[in-house]
C-alpha cells in the first residue's frame, strides 16, 4: 500500500513516457478487439466502431488512467500555472505594474518586520536572554551618576541578593576614544569599555578565540589584558589568526590580547546605541575606582524560575544595606527606592515599542493600499475577461475551478512581487544595518532571517488571497447570461463593478490620508525638536579630544596634593593649547570642558545656599562640567555675570557658574534679593563656592526632554575627567581639523589622530531615532500617496474608456470639451473628497495613539490635516486630469462608430 503515493508522485514526473505507453497499450487493445470482431464476421468499419464503443471512449479511458495513476490536483495546478503565465505574459504592462506595486508593498513590510523583529520581538542576542535584568534607579535629573552604583554597593548587592545566578556591570563613564594604541607611528584612538570580570559569564558570551576575563585579570597588580571585538580585530589587526598572546602599547602600557569576541557580540548595539566599542578591558573593583562614587551599571542574571516581582522584592530588601561608601556609614541606605530590576530587553528597546508599532502599522497600511490597488486592477481586467469566464462556465467549468484559476493568477503575481520585494527589503535592511550613527539599539544586528522569510511568505499569500479572492468571487458569481449578453462596455455587470471599484478607491484614499496625517505630525514634531533652544550653538563649533598624560605628575589624583599637582600641570598645558588654537586665523573662540552636552555626564551631589536649611527631600544634584575660561563662549552658551579666568587659581576663592533653572531653584529657597544668584555663596560637601555667573540652561541629556541643571567648575580649581577642546570657527571643517591637529601634535607628539567632530553631530545623534522614524513614515506616506494616485488614475481612466460611446453621444449633442473635462474631474474629486473625509475621521480617532510620539505638536494639528487634504486633492486632481483630458479629446464620430 505504502508504495502508491511515491509511485503517484513519480508518475507525475514521467507523465510523457507513461502517456506514450498508455497510448500504445490502448492502440493494441483496439487492434485486438478489431481482430476478434473481424473473426466474428463483421465488416472492418463495423469491427472498428464496436471496438471503440466497447472501450467506452478513448479520451475517457486515458483520463481515468491518468487520474488513477497520478496527482490530478497537481496536474490542474500545472495547467492553471501554464495558463496564468500565458495570460500574464500577454498583458505584460499590467503584470509589470502589479508586480511592482506588490514588490513595494511587500518589500516595505519585510524590511520593517525585520526591524521590529530585531528590536522588539526577538530576544536579545544572549543565551536565555529572558533571565537578564538591568538594575537601575528610576530616572532622575542627575544623569548617569544617579543611574549607577558604587563598587561598595555592587559588592553588597551581589553578596546579599538571592534572586540572581550572578550580577555584573560595566564602567559607565568610559568616553569615546579613551584608548590610544601605539603601533610605531602616530597613536590610534580607539574606544574600550571596562567591565567587571564576570561580565561575559553573566551574559553567556563565549570567545571566538582565546579566552575572556577571569577574576585574576581584575586584581591589583594584574598585568594589563584586553579582549578585542571582532570588528576591531578585523579592521585594525587584519584578522590576525595568531593575535592571542601578542602585546601592544595601549595608553602607554604593554597590554596583552587574551581573546577575540564573536561577531555576534556588539556592546554598542545593546548598551549604548550608536556608539562604536572596539575592545573590552577588565575593571579593577579594588583599585582606585573604589573611591570614585557611582560608576558601575548593574546587570543581573536571574536564577531559573525567579520572577521579576520576586527580584524586585529581593532588591528592595537589599537596598537599605547598600552603602555609597562603606567608610562613610551615613551613606548607607542612600539607595533605598533606587534599586529596581527591569528586563534587560525593556531597558534596551522598551521605549521604542510605540514608534515601532507605528512603523509597523504604516507598512501594514501600505500593503492594504497595494492590495486594494491590485484588487482594482484585477477587477478591471476581470471585467474585460468576463466573457472568457462565462464561456468557460458554459463549457462546464465549475465555479471553484474558475476561482482557483484566478487565485493561481494572484498567487503568481504576489509570488513575483514577494521575490522582488525581498530584494528591495534586503537592500533596505543592509543599508539600515550600516547606519552606525543612528542611536537605535541592535540596529547593527539587523538582517533578513528565517523569521523574515516566513513573514514574506505569509504576507504574500495573505495579499494574494486579499486582492485575488474578492474579484474572483465577484466574477465567477456573476450571471452567465448577462456576461455573455453584455455586448460591450457600458452596460450591466460592468456598471456594478464600477461601484465596487469606487468604494475601493475611497478606501485607498482614506488609508493614504491616515498615513499622510501620521507622517505630517511626525514631521512637524521633528521640526519642533530642531527649533528647541539647546542652550548652546552647535553650528560652526567642533570638538576634538585632546590627549594628555597625568601620570607623570602624580598617580590617579587620589590625594589632595597629587590632585593639586595635576591641576597645576594641566593648567599650563591647557593655556598653551588654547593660546595656540585661538591664534589660528579664522578661529573665533576656543575652550575646554571634560564632558560635553548630549554626551556623558556626572553629578557631584547637590550644592546648597550657605546657611539655608536643607529640605527634607534634597533635589538630585546638577550635572558637573569642569571647564576652562572661554568654554562657554566657544559653545555659544549665553552667560550673565563673569566667565572664569586663569586667575581663579587653586589658592583664590572657589568659584562656580550655575545654570539658570538651578539658580532659580536655589533663589526660591534662599530668598536672594531680586532672585539674583551672582555673588552668592553655596556650599557642597563642606566646601564654599562663590557663584560668579549664571549660564543659560543646556539640554545635556536629550534635545527633547527638559533642560536639566548644570554647574560649571573652573578647571583651574577642580579635577577634570577628560579633555574636549571646542573650537568655534568659520573655517571649513577639514582644513580646520588639519590645522588644529597639527597644533596639538606640536604641543604633544603623542596626540592621537582623534576624530574632529562637529558639535552639530552630537545633536544629530540625539535626534537620530526621531529622524529615523520620521523619515521612514514619511517615505511610506509618499509611497501610499503614489499608490493611491495610481488607483485613482486607474479607475477614472477605465471609466472614461468604458463611457467612450456615451461621451461621444453627449459631445455629438453639443456638450463642450470643457464640460466633459469638468465632469470627469468632478467625479475624481468627489471620490477623493469622500476618501479624505473618511480618512480624516479615522485619523482623528487614531491620532491619540501616537500622541506620545509627538513633540510640541497636537495630534489634532489643524495645519497637518489641512496640508494632508490639499496634498491629496492635488494628487487626485492630477490623476484625474489625464483621463479627463483624454475624454474631452474624444471624437464623436470615431466613438460612435466603434463597437
Amino acid at each position, binding site marked *: 500500500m505504502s508504495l502508491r503515493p511515491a509511485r503517484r508522485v513519480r508518475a507525475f514526473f514521467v507523465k510523457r513516457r507513461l502517456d506514450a505507453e498508455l497510448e500504445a497499450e490502448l492502440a*493494441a487493445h483496439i487492434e485486438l478487439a478489431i481482430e476478434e470482431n473481424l473473426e466474428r464476421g463483421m465488416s472492418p468499419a463495423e469491427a472498428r466502431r464496436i471496438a471503440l464503443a466497447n472501450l*467506452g471512449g478513448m479520451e475517457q479511458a486515458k483520463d481515468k488512467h491518468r487520474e*488513477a495513476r497520478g496527482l490530478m490536483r497537481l496536474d490542474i495546478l500545472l495547467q492553471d500555472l501554464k495558463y496564468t503565465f500565458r495570460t500574464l505574459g500577454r498583458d505584460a504592462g499590467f503584470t509589470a505594474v502589479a508586480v511592482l506595486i506588490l514588490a513595494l508593498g511587500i518589500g516595505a513590510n519585510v524590511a520593517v518586520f525585520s526591524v521590529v523583529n530585531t528590536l522588539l520581538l526577538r530576544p536579545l542576542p544572549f543565551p536565555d536572554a529572558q533571565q537578564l535584568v538591568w538594575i537601575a534607579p528610576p530616572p532622575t535629573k542627575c544623569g548617569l551618576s544617579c543611574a549607577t552604583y558604587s563598587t561598595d554597593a555592587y559588592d553588597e548587592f551581589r553578596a546579599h541578593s538571592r534572586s540572581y545566578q550572578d550580577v555584573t556591570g560595566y564602567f559607565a563613564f568610559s568616553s569615546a576614544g579613551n584608548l590610544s594604541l601605539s603601533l610605531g607611528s602616530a597613536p590610534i584612538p580607539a574606544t574600550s569599555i571596562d567591565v567587571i570580570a564576570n561580565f561575559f559569564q553573566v551574559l553567556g558570551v563565549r570567545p571566538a578565540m582565546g579566552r575572556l576575563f577571569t577574576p585574576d585579570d581584575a586584581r591589583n597588580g594584574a598585568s594589563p589584558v584586553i579582549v578585542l571585538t571582532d570588528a576591531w580585530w578585523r579592521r585594525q589587526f587584519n584578522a590576525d589568526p595568531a593575535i592571542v598572546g601578542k602585546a601592544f602599547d595601549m595608553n602607554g602600557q604593554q597590554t596583552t590580547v587574551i581573546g577575540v569576541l564573536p561577531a555576534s557580540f556588539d556592546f554598542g548595539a545593546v548598551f549604548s546605541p550608536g556608539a562604536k566599542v572596539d575592545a573590552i578591558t577588565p575593571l579593577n573593583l579594588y583599585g582606585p575606582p573604589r573611591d570614585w562614587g557611582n560608576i558601575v551599571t548593574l546587570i543581573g542574571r536571574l536564577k531559573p524560575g525567579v520572577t521579576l516581582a520576586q527580584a524586585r522584592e529581593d532588591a528592595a530588601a537589599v537596598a537599605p544595606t547598600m552603602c555609597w561608601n562603606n567608610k562613610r556609614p551615613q551613606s548607607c541606605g542612600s539607595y533605598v527606592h533606587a534599586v529596581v530590576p527591569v528586563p534587560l530587553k525593556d531597558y534596551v528597546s522598551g521605549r521604542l515599542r510605540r514608534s515601532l508599532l507605528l512603523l509597523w502599522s504604516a507598512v501594514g497600511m501600505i500593503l492594504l493600499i497595494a492590495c486594494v490597488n491590485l484588487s482594482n486592477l484585477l477587477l478591471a481586467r476581470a471585467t474585460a475577461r468576463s466573457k472568457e469566464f462565462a464561456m468557460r462556465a458554459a463549457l462546464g467549468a465549475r465555479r471553484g475551478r474558475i476561482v482557483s484559476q484566478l487565485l493561481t493568477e494572484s498567487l503568481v503575481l504576489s509570488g513575483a512581487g514577494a521575490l522582488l520585494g525581498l530584494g528591495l527589503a534586503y537592500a533596505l535592511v543592509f543599508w539600515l544595518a550600516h547606519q552606525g550613527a543612528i542611536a537605535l539599539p541592535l540596529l547593527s544586528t539587523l538582517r533578513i532571517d528565517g523569521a523574515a522569510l516566513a513573514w514574506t511568505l505569509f504576507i504574500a499569500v495573505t495579499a494574494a488571497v486579499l486582492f485575488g479572492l474578492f474579484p474572483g468571487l465577484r466574477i465567477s458569481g456573476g450571471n452567465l447570461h448577462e456576461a455573455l449578453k453584455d455586448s460591450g462596455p457600458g452596460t450591466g455587470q460592468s456598471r456594478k463593478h464600477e461601484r465596487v471599484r469606487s468604494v475601493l478607491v475611497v478606501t485607498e484614499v482614506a488609508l493614504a490620508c491616515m498615513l499622510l496625517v501620521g507622517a505630517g505630525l511626525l514631521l512637524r514634531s521633528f521640526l519642533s525638536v530642531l527649533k528647541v533652544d539647546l542652550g548652546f550653538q552647535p553650528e560652526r563649533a567642533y570638538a576634538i579630544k585632546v590627549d594628555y598624560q597625568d601620570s607623570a605628575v602624580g598617580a590617579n589624583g587620589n590625594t589632595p596634593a597629587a590632585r593639586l599637582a595635576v591641576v597645576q600641570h594641566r593648567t599650563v598645558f591647557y593655556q598653551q593649547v588654547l593660546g595656540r588654537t585661538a591664534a589660528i586665523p579664522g578661529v573665533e573662540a576656543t575652550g575646554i570642558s571634560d564632558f560635553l552636552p548630549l554626551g556623558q555626564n556626572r553629578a557631584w551631589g547637590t550644592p546648597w545656599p550657605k546657611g539655608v536649611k536643607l529640605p527634607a527631600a534634597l533635589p538630585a544634584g546638577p550635572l558637573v562640567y569642569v571647564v576652562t575660561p572661554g568654554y562657554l563662549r566657544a559653545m555659544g552658551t549665553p552667560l550673565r555675570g563673569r566667565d572664569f579666568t586663569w586667575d581663579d587659581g587653586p589658592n583664590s576663592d572657589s568659584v562656580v557658574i550655575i545654570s539658570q533653572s538651578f539658580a532659580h531653584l536655589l533663589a526660591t529657597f534662599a530668598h536672594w534679593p531680586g532672585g539674583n544668584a551672582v555673588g552668592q555663596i553655596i556650599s557642597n560637601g563642606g566646601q564654599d563656592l562663590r557663584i560668579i555667573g549664571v549660564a543659560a540652561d543646556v539640554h545635556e541629556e536629550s534635545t527633547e526632554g527638559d533642560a536639566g541643571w548644570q554647574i560649571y567648575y573652573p578647571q583651574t580649581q577642580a579635577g577634570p575627567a577628560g579633555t574636549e577642546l571646542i573650537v568655534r570657527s568659520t573655517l571649513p571643517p577639514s582644513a580646520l581639523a588639519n590645522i588644529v591637529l597639527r597644533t596639538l601634535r606640536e604641543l604633544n607628539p603623542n596626540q592621537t589622530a582623534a576624530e574632529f567632530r562637529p558639535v552639530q553631530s552630537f545633536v544629530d545623534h540625539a535626534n537620530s531615532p526621531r529622524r529615523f522614524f520620521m523619515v521612514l513614515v514619511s517615505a511610506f506616506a509618499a509611497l501610499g500617496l503614489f499608490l493611491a494616485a495610481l488607483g485613482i488614475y486607474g479607475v477614472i481612466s477605465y471609466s472614461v474608456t468604458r463611457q467612450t460611446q456615451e461621451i461621444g453621444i453627449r459631445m455629438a449633442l453639443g456638450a463642450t470639451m470643457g464640460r466633459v473635462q469638468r465632469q470627469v474631474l468632478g467625479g475624481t474629486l468627489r471620490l477623493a473628497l469622500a476618501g479624505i473625509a473618511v480618512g480624516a475621521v479615522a485619523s482623528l480617532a487614531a491620532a491619540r495613539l501616537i500622541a506620545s510620539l509627538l513633540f510640541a505638536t497636537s495630534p489634532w494639528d489643524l495645519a497637518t490635516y489641512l496640508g494632508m487634504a490639499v496634498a491629496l486633492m492635488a494628487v487626485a486632481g492630477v490623476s484625474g486630469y489625464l483621463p479627463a483630458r483624454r475624454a474631452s479629446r474624444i471624437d464623436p464620430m470615431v466613438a460612435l462608430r466603434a463597437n
Partner: protein
Amino acid sequence: MQSSKLDLLQGTLDLMVLKTLAAMGSQHGYGIARRIEQVSGDQVLLNQGTIYASLVRLEQRGWIASSWGVSGNNRKAKFYSITRAGRRQLAEDARYWERLTGVMERVLTMDKDPDEALGESGEPA
C-alpha cells in the same frame, strides 16, 4: 446498451482483475476485459477502458506486474501478471467479499420476525 446490465460496485473491478490474472496467468488488458465479460455472461456493464485505470492502480500497489510482450497473433501488447502480494491481497479481498455477500444474502432473505415486532412497541417516540 441494455439497461438490464449490472453497474459495477466501487472496488469490485479491481478484485475481478486480480482474480482473472490469478486464474489465467499473464494476460493483456483486452484479454482481461474480455475474460471478465465472458465469465459474467455479458451481464456487467464494463467500459473496457476502465480496466486500464484499475490496472495502473493495482500495479502501483505492487499487486500486479507488467511487461511488454507479443500476443498469440503476433501483436505487441502489455502483459500483466499477479504478484505474490497480489495473491495475498486477493485472498483477503475474496474473504471479505464472501462475508459481505453472506450478510447481504441473510439481510435480503429475512422475514418479519418477533424481534422486529418487539422493536416496534419498544420505546415511545
